[in-house]
C-alpha cells in the first residue's frame, strides 16, 4: 500500500525498532515523535515582573539569573535584557484594565518568542502591600550584589502578615468564575432537536461562532476577572488598591537556530497555544502560592530561598510538560482519522484494527477488560456520537460511507469558527451537557500491550479531520498576489487589468462627479469604473426610483458641472459658487444630513428630493461640500473649530447610510493539504516516559506518578480548561493492562476508598455484546471492512437507545430500572453510557439524572 503522508514525514523519526515480528507488526512502527530535534529545557525562561505605581518595576524572578538553588549564591546579576523585556511586558503606557492581559512578542535576535500574562493584583484586607516584604528582600539583594547576606538586616519584617491567621493556605486561591461560568454555559432547551445528524456538533460550533463573533462587539466572557492573588484570604479586595500593582509572568522560549526547526516549532506552538496557556496558568498559580507561603517566613534569606525553590520547582514542571508535549511519541496512524482520510487503505486498516482488537479481547477475556475500557471511553469521549447519528441526506458516493456533514460545512463557511477548537473539544469528549472533559491513560509495563490498547482506542476516540488551505508556494512571490496592494502599479501601470472596464453610457457623468468628489484622485480609468458601480448601485438599491434616477441624471450632470465648472479642477471656486448662490438643493440637503429627524422632514423635502437627483449621490456631493468647506475654513487655524465636532459625528452617521463602491473579491487560489499541526495528530499519544496532562490518550509504564499529580491536574483542568469554555468536570480513565482494571478518576470526588485512584467501571452489557458480535463476525472470516461497518451500525444502535432513554426520562420523576430493561432493553449497567450519549442531544437528561 501507499505510504501515507505522515508515514513519509515521520518514517525516520519512528520510535523503537521494528523487529519484524508479524504478530506485533503494527504497533511499534505506528508511533512517532513530533519534534525533529532535541528541545533543550533551558530554552524556556521564566520572568516574573512587578510594576508598582510607587516603586516602579522590579524583577521578582528571572530563571536566567539563577544558577543552582543549592549553591551559596543562587542568583547572579540580572540579565541585561530585563529592562527591555519589562517594557514589552507592561507596555510603555500603563493600562488600567483590571483583568488579565495576554501578549506575545517575537524577538528577532536572538530568535525568541515571549508569552506574557499581565495581572492586576488582589490583596487581602489585612495585608495591604504585603508583597513588599519579598520585594524588599529582592531589592536589597540586588543592591548589595554580590554579597546578599548583608541584605537581611535591611529587609523589613514589619509587613509580615500575622502567622496562623490563615493556615489553610491551599484552598485560598481566589477564583472568580467557577460557579458563574457554569451558570453561563448555554443550555439549549429540551425538546429542540435537529433533523440533521450532526445536531450537537452543529449546535456547539454555532454557539462558538456567536460567542467569538466580532459583530457582537466585545463580550466579556467567563474568565475576564482573573487576577494575581497576593493573599490567601478570600475576602473581597478594595477596588482602589487593585490598580496599584501589576504582575507579569513571561515565558521566553528560545527558538531553534535552524530555519526549518524554527518554523516547525512555531507552527506547533501557535496551533497548540491553548495548551501552553493552560500550563502558564498553572505556573501562575504556583507562583502565587510561593509568594503567599514565603511571606509567612520571617527570616529574609530563608524566605527568598523558599520562594525561589518553589518557583523553580513550578518552572521545572512547566518545562517538563512543554518538553513532553513537543517530544513525546504519538500514534502516527490513529485508526479513525486514518480511515476517514485515506480511503484507499481502508481495508488494510480495518484488518489491522480488528486483528489488534481480537488479540486484546483474548488477552483480557476473563476480566472483561476491553468491554470495561470501551464502556468508559464511549461514555466519556463522546465525539463518536455525531459520527453515527444517521444523516438525512442521500449518500454522495458510496452507500455505506459516512457522509460529511453538510450543515456544519455551510456553517463553517458563512460563520467561521475555529476548527482546532472544535477538534480539541471532540477529543476531550466535551459534547455533553454539562460539559465534561476526559482523557484516557493506559498504564502497563508491557509496552506492546499498552500500544495495542492505544491503537484500538484511537478508533473510538474521535475528532474531525483538518485540512489546510494555503497559497501555493509560487503564488506568494507572484506580484499579482492579492496580499500585495501595490501590484497593479509595480507590474502594470494600467489599472484596467485589475478592474476590466465595462462599457457604460453614463461614464462621462460619473467621471465629472468623481473629479469633484475626490480631488486627490487622478482622473483615470479605474476611478471611472468605480463610479459606474456607484451609479448602478444607487439605482439598484432604490428600485422605486429607478425610472426617476434615469431621468434625473442629466440634471445631476448639469449640477455637477454648474458647481465645479466644466473642468472640475477648481474645487474651491465651485464651492464659492455654491455658497454664493445658495441653491435650493443645497439648502435642503443641509437640513437632511445627519439629522435624526430626517424621516420626519422627508415630507417637506420630498418634493425637492424627488425632483432632484438620486438621493445617495445627492448626499455624497453635499457631504463632500461640507467637508471641503470645513477644510478651507480650518486650514488657517491649527486647532480647527467647534463645528468640526458636530460635523464629524454627522459624517459617521452619514457613513452608515451610504452605499459602498463594489469591487470584486480577489480570486482565491489555494492548495489544499492535510493539516499536520492539529490536535488529532498531537493529542493521541504513544507509550510515553511519563504522564502527559494534555493528551486525550497516551500510555505510561506505571501509575506511581499518576497518583501524585492526577487529582491536582484534573482540578487545574476545571479551573483553566484549555478548551476556552467553562467545564463542569474533568475525568481521567485509567486502564491498567497489568492488573486488567479500568477506573475513572474525577475532579469532583477527592476520596476513594482503599487508596485507589478512582471508581471501577461497570461493564455495559450493550458494549459487551457489541464487541463480542463484531469479533465473532471477524472470527467467522467475514470481510473486516464489513465487520467495521457492523461495528458502526451497533454504535448507531446505542445512539437510538439513548434517544429512547431521553424520551423515557422526559417528564419522569423516578426511573424504573426494571421497566427500562423490559421495555427498552436497557439494563442498569447501560444507563451511565446511554445517559451520557443522551446528554449530547437532549441536555435535560443530565438534569433529570442528577
Amino acid at each position, binding site marked *: 500500500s501507499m505510504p501515507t503522508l505522515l508515514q513519509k514525514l515521520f518514517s525516520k523519526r519512528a520510535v523503537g525498532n521494528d523487529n519484524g515480528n508479524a504478530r506485533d507488526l503494527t504497533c511499534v512502527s505506528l508511533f512517532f515523535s513530533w519534534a525533529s530535534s532535541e528541545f533543550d529545557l533551558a530554552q524556556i525562561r521564566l520572568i516574573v515582573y512587578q510594576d508598582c505605581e510607587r516603586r516602579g518595576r522590579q524583577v521578582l524572578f528571572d530563571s536566567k539569573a539563577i544558577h543552582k538553588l543549592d549553591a551559596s549564591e543562587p542568583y547572579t546579576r540580572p540579565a541585561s535584557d530585563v529592562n527591555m523585556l519589562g517594557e514589552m511586558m507592561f507596555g510603555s503606557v500603563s493600562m488600567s484594565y483590571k*483583568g488579565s492581559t495576554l501578549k506575545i512578542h517575537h524577538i528577532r535576535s536572538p530568535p525568541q518568542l515571549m508569552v506574557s500574562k499581565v495581572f492586576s493584583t488582589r490583596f487581602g484586607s489585612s495585608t495591604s502591600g504585603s508583597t513588599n516584604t519579598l520585594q524588599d528582600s529582592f531589592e536589597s539583594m540586588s543592591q548589595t550584589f554580590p554579597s546578599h547576606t548583608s541584605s537581611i538586616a535591611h529587609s523589613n519584617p514589619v509587613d509580615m502578615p500575622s502567622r496562623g491567621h490563615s493556615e489553610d493556605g491551599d484552598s485560598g486561591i481566589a477564583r472568580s468564575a467557577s460557579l458563574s461560568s457554569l451558570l453561563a454555559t448555554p443550555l439549549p432547551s429540551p425538546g429542540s432537536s435537529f433533523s440533521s445528524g450532526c445536531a450537537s456538533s452543529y449546535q456547539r460550533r454555532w454557539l462558538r461562532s456567536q460567542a467569538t463573533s466580532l459583530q457582537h462587539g466585545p463580550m466579556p466572557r467567563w474568565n475576564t476577572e482573573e487576577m494575581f492573588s497576593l493573599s490567601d484570604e478570600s475576602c473581597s479586595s478594595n477596588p482602589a488598591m487593585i490598580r496599584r500593582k501589576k504582575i507579569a509572568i513571561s515565558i521566553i522560549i528560545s527558538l531553534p537556530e535552524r530555519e526549518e526547526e524554527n518554523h516547525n516549532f512555531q507552527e506547533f506552538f501557535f496551533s497548540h497555544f491553548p495548551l501552553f496557556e493552560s500550563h502558564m496558568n498553572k505556573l501562575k498559580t504556583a507562583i502565587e502560592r510561593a509568594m503567599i507561603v514565603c511571606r509567612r517566613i520571617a527570616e529574609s534569606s530563608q524566605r527568598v530561598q523558599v520562594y525561589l525553590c518553589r518557583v523553580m520547582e513550578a518552572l521545572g514542571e512547566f518545562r517538563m510538560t512543554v518538553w513532553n508535549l513537543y517530544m513525546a511519541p504519538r500514534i502516527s496512524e490513529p485508526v479513525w482519522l486514518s480511515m476517514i482520510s485515506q480511503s484507499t487503505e481502508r481495508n488494510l486498516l480495518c484488518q489491522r484494527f480488528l486483528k489488534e482488537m481480537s488479540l486484546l479481547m483474548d488477552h483480557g477475556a476473563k476480566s472483561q477488560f476491553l468491554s470495561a475500557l470501551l464502556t468508559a471511553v464511549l461514555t466519556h469521549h463522546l465525539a463518536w456520537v455525531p459520527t453515527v447519528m444517521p444523516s438525512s441526506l442521500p449518500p454522495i458516493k458510496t452507500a455505506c460511507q459516512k457522509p460529511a456533514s453538510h450543515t456544519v460545512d455551510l456553517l463553517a463557511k458563512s460563520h467561521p469558527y475555529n476548527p482546532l477548537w472544535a477538534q480539541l473539544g471532540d477529543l476531550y469528549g466535551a459534547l455533553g451537557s454539562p460539559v465534561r472533559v476526559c482523557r484516557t491513560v493506559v498504564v502497563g509495563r508491557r509496552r506492546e500491550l499498552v500500544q495495542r490498547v492505544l491503537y484500538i482506542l484511537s478508533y473510538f476516540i474521535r475528532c474531525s479531520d483538518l485540512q489546510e488551505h494555503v497559497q501555493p508556494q509560487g503564488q506568494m512571490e507572484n506580484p499579482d498576489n492579492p496580499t500585495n496592494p501595490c501590484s497593479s502599479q509595480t507590474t502594470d501601470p494600467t489599472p484596467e487589468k485589475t478592474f476590466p472596464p465595462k462599457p457604460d453610457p453614463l461614464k462621462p457623468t460619473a467621471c465629472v462627479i468623481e473629479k469633484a468628489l475626490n480631488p486627490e484622485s487622478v482622473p483615470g480609468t479605474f476611478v471611472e469604473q468605480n463610479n459606474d458601480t456607484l451609479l448602478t448601485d444607487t439605482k439598484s438599491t432604490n428600485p422605486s426610483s429607478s425610472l426617476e434616477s434615469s431621468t434625473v441624471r442629466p440634471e445631476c450632470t448639469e449640477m455637477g458641472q454648474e458647481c465645479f465648472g466644466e473642468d472640475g479642477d477648481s474645487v474651491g471656486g465651485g464651492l464659492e459658487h455654491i455658497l454664493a448662490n445658495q441653491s435650493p438643493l443645497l439648502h435642503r440637503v443641509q437640513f437632511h444630513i445627519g439629522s435624526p429627524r430626517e424621516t420626519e422632514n422627508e415630507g417637506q423635502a420630498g418634493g425637492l428630493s424627488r425632483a432632484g437627483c438620486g438621493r445617495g449621490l445627492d448626499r455624497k456631493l453635499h457631504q463632500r461640500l461640507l467637508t471641503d468647506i470645513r477644510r478651507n475654513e480650518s486650514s488657517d487655524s491649527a486647532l480647527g473649530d467647534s463645528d468640526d465636532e458636530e460635523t464629524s459625528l454627522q459624517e459617521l452617521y452619514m457613513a452608515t447610510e451610504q452605499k459602498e463602491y463594489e469591487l470584486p473579491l480577489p480570486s482565491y487560489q489555494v492548495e489544499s493539504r492535510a493539516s499536520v499541526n492539529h490536535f488529532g495528530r498531537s493529542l493521541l499519544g504513544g507509550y510515553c516516559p511519563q504522564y502527559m496532562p494534555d493528551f486525550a490518550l497516551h500510555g505510561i509504564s506505571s501509575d506511581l506518578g499518576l497518583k501524585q499529580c492526577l487529582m491536582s491536574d484534573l482540578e487545574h483542568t476545571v479551573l483553566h480548561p484549555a478548551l476556552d469554555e467553562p467545564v463542569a468536570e474533568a475525568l481521567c480513565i485509567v486502564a491498567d493492562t497489568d492488573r486488567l482494571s479500568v477506573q475513572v478518576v474525577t475532579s469532583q470526588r477527592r476520596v476513594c476508598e482503599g487508596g485507589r485512584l478512582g471508581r471501577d467501571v461497570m461493564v455495559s452489557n450493550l458494549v459487551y455484546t457489541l464487541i463480542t458480535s463484531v469479533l465473532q463476525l471477524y472470527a467467522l472470516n467475514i470481510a473486516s471492512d464489513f465487520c467495521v461497518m457492523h461495528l458502526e451500525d451497533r454504535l448507531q444502535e446505542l445512539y437510538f437507545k439513548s434517544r429512547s432513554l431521553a424520551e423515557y426520562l422526559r417528564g419522569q420523576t423516578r426511573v424504573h430500572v426494571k421497566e427500562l430493561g423490559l421495555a427498552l432493553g436497557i439494563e442498569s449497567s447501560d444507563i451511565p453510557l446511554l445517559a451520557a450519549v443522551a446528554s449530547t442531544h437532549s441536555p435535560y437528561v443530565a438534569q433529570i439524572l442528577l
Partner: protein
Amino acid sequence: MNALVALCHFCELHGPRTLFCTEAVHPPSPSPPQPGSAIPGDRDREADREGEGLTMRANSSATQRADMCEGCRSLPASHPGFVSVDSETGIRYLSHQHPRQPQLFSVVRQACVRSLSCEVCPGREGPIFFGDEQHGFVFSHTFFIKDSLARGFQRWYSIVVVAMDRIYLINSWPFLLRHLRQTIQSLQDTALKVFDNEQCVCPQRAVRMNSAFSPAVFPHQRSGNAARSLTSLTQHPNLWASLHSSFSWLLKACGSRLTEKLLEGAPTEDTLVLIERQTEQEEERSGWDGAEGGGSNPQPSQSESVQPKDFQFDDGRQEDLLGPKFKSLRHLRQVLGANDFRQLAWHVLMGNQVIWRGADPGLIQSAFNVLKALLPVGCVRAVLYSPHYEEAYRCNFLALTHVSSSEFSMLVDVLNVERGCVNPVSDDDILSLYHEFFLNVSFSWFVFLSGPTLLNKIEVALSNENLSVEVVSLCLLCLKEEWMNKVKVLFKFSKVDGRGKEDTQKVLALLGATGPGEEDNVRLLKFWMTGLSKLYKSHLMTAVRGGERTLSQ
C-alpha cells in the same frame, strides 16, 4: 474570518490614528439558535468601560476627527467606502476609514492606540499579539514607510487584525505574519521608490542642513509636512481600493485556512429506501411530463432532508377522511385485543399479506399507517382501495371492498363501524371488528407459543401503559434498527458470501436469533432482507467483486 483588519498610522501631529478598516459582515445565521440558548454577552458595556485609562479614553469620533490632517486620512469623508461580496458565503467585506459597526469603533481605536503608542516591539517593526476579553484581541504588525519630508525620513504605521476569538487569532499567527509581511513589504518598496525619486529631485537632508533652525518657524514647517497621505507617499492612486482587496482577501483566506471534515452517520436503510423511491417517482414523473421541459421539479437537492413519514400514503390524505381512526399501535391493540393484535402483527412482521376489507377507507388507511411502522420502509408495499384482489408479491397491505382469498394472507373484516363519529372519545366504543383467517389453525397456534423475539419485545412496550406513545415509537425504532442490522449481516453472509448452512447457523446464534422463536426469527430476517435498499445491496456486491477492495471514494 471573524475579524477586521485596520491600517493605523502614528501621525506626528495627531498621534495614533486609524486610517483604513476592512470588516467582514456575515449573513444572518443559517439556523437560528434554539429557544432558551441565550448567547452570552449583552452586558452593560458602559459599566465595563469604567476602568479604562486616560489614553484609552479617546474613543469618541468627535475628538479624533476634529483634529485631522491628510496623513490621518485615507478615504475622503464623502467617499462611501468599498465593498466586496463573497457570493458563495454571503459574507460582505466592507472598507471605510473607520468601522461601520459602532460597537467596533472603540475596539479598533483601542487596538490602534495600543499598537502604536503602548505596546513595545523590539526594533519597533514587527509582530505583537496583545489583548484582553474586554477590548478584544489584536495581532499587530508595526512598520515604517519612507517619507522624504518626515522627521527621520520615515513614518510609522501598523496593520492590526482584531478578533474576539483569541485562540484562533493566535493559531493564525504564522499565516497572518507571512501575508502581512508581504503587504507591508509591497507598501515599503513602493514608498521607497517614491522616496528615492524625491531625494533625487530635491535632497531633503541638504535642505534641512542648510536651512536655519528657528524655533518659531519649526512647528509650522512640520505641520505642513505632516499632511502627506499614504497615497502620496506611495504615488499609488488606487491604493485604498487595492488595500481593500488585500485585506478582504486576507480575511477570507485566514477564515478558511483550516476546514474540518466532520462525518455523520450513514443514513438508515429507511432513509435510503425513501430516497430511492422518491428518485424513481421523479423519474417516472419526468417521463410523464418530459414534454413540459421538466424544469420545475429537479432532483431532490442534497440539502433537502427526507422525512420518513407518510410516504406510502401520501396520496391518501388521511386528515380529509372523517370517521374513526387508529391513532397508534397501542390503540389498535386495545381495539383488537391482545391476542388478535398479536396474530395480526405476526403476519405483518413475517411479510404475509394483510387484507383489510371494509367500507371505511379512512379507518383502514389509519390501520395501515400504524401497522406499517412495524416494518422497515423497504418492506412495505401497500395497495389502497383496490377494487379487486392483488397478489401477495405485489402488496403486503391491501384494502379491499370485495371478498377474496389467498393462502398466506390474513383478512380483517371491518363489520360494524359507527359512522359519522367524528370525535371518537373512547377507544373501545369506536368499533368492533370481526376478523377471520384464511390460514390453518396450527400455524396460528405457533404464534402463541413463541413468536419472533421482536414481536415479544414490541408487545412488552405496548402493554406498558407507563410508556408514552413517543417512547413506544422510539422503542420500536430501536428494535427495527437492531433487527435491520442483523438482516444486513445475514444478507452479507448468505447472499453475498454464499456461506453454508453450518456457518449460517453460527451467525444466527451470534445475532441472537436462535433459541425460542428461532424459526420465526429466521423468517422475519429473510422477509426483511427484501427491504434492504438497492444501494446497500449493490455496495456489498461490488465490494465482493472487487475482492473486498471497497471503492470507498
